[in-house]
């Protein structure tokens, strides 16, 4: 550093010292806004609840796809309902590959659970 540079630096030193001593604290409103931004940016990075529900629905859709889509899933559900009906019904005669039912049993059968599964298939 040149001699006159040193002189200049020494001359300016009191001014810089006064500037350093002056408080430069940000106002409270600015600090709270900065922290609000931090919270907002952080919250935006977290997965939202609707996204988690869509992830669960995606899992069900994958399972349905393994079975051949919603029709396959509906057929499985229908088979399960018929099996349940056979198991609880006292008037059934099971012969080979067919199920014989009395008219009373047939009228007592509530077709809605089976139809509901086909209704699901129609929504595809």
């Amino acid at each position, binding site marked *: 550093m040149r001699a006159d540079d040193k002189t200049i630096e020494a001359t*300016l030193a009191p*001014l810089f010292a*006064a500037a350093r001593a002056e408080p*430069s604290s940000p106002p409270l409103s600015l*600090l709270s806004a900065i922290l609000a931004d931090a919270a907002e940016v952080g919250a935006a990075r977290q997965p939202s609840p609707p996204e988690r529900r869509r992830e669960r629905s995606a899992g069900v859709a994958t399972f349905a796809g393994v079975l051949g889509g919603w029709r396959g899933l509906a057929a499985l559900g229908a088979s399960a309902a018929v099996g349940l009906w056979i198991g609880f019904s006292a008037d059934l005669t099971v012969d080979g590959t067919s199920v014989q039912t009395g008219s009373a049993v047939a009228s007592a059968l509530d077709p809605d659970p089976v139809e509901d599964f086909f209704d699901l298939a129609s929504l595809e």
Partner: protein
Amino acid sequence: MTARAGTFPRVPESRWQTRSPGAVIVEPMTTQAATGDDSEAGLLRRYAGGDQSAARTLTARHAPRVFGLARRMLGDPAEAEDVTQEAMLRLWRIAPDWDPERGSVGTWLYRVTSNLCIDRKRRWREVTVETVAERPDEAPGAVVRLEAADRTAALDAALARLPDRQRLALILRHIEEQGNVEIAAVLDTSVEAVESLLARGRRALAADLAGRRSELGFTDG
């Protein structure tokens, strides 16, 4: 982004510890209240993981210096608040991708703040800068010992008349007390270039203030 300058959401003042008017401490202030890694990279990692206390610590450490630099670069407290909020917002956004190899958080923030200030000044009309740099009226020939605040105001006015990079180098070196290596990182230049900027800036500053040596308490030698 949330509210701009002048429309910030309010936090009850009972949450803030105040030592004296103008000095505000944001809690938690020190590593005593924090858990886990309190290095800068660690704090950013914790914040990115959802730890808001890390954000408070980072704000307490860096917001005052960012604001101080912005205020001296722009000469306008409201503009300085906008720049400070923007700089910290960029830190929050980059937190998950922070690479410690890029240097310290403080240096990175100084660089972002500098660029924001210079961009803002480029958009201003030149007459605005001249207005900020005007000297206060004074009686011809009068020798008045100015108070420290007046000396700071005179310094700020003289700094405002310097080219941006000289001004920035002087503020970082002599007010923010950063080393030449850090200043070189902020300005994206060499240490030798920083030394040259500082030397030229000091000479220009001294020449600008030469006519007010007595008032400003200049001493020889």
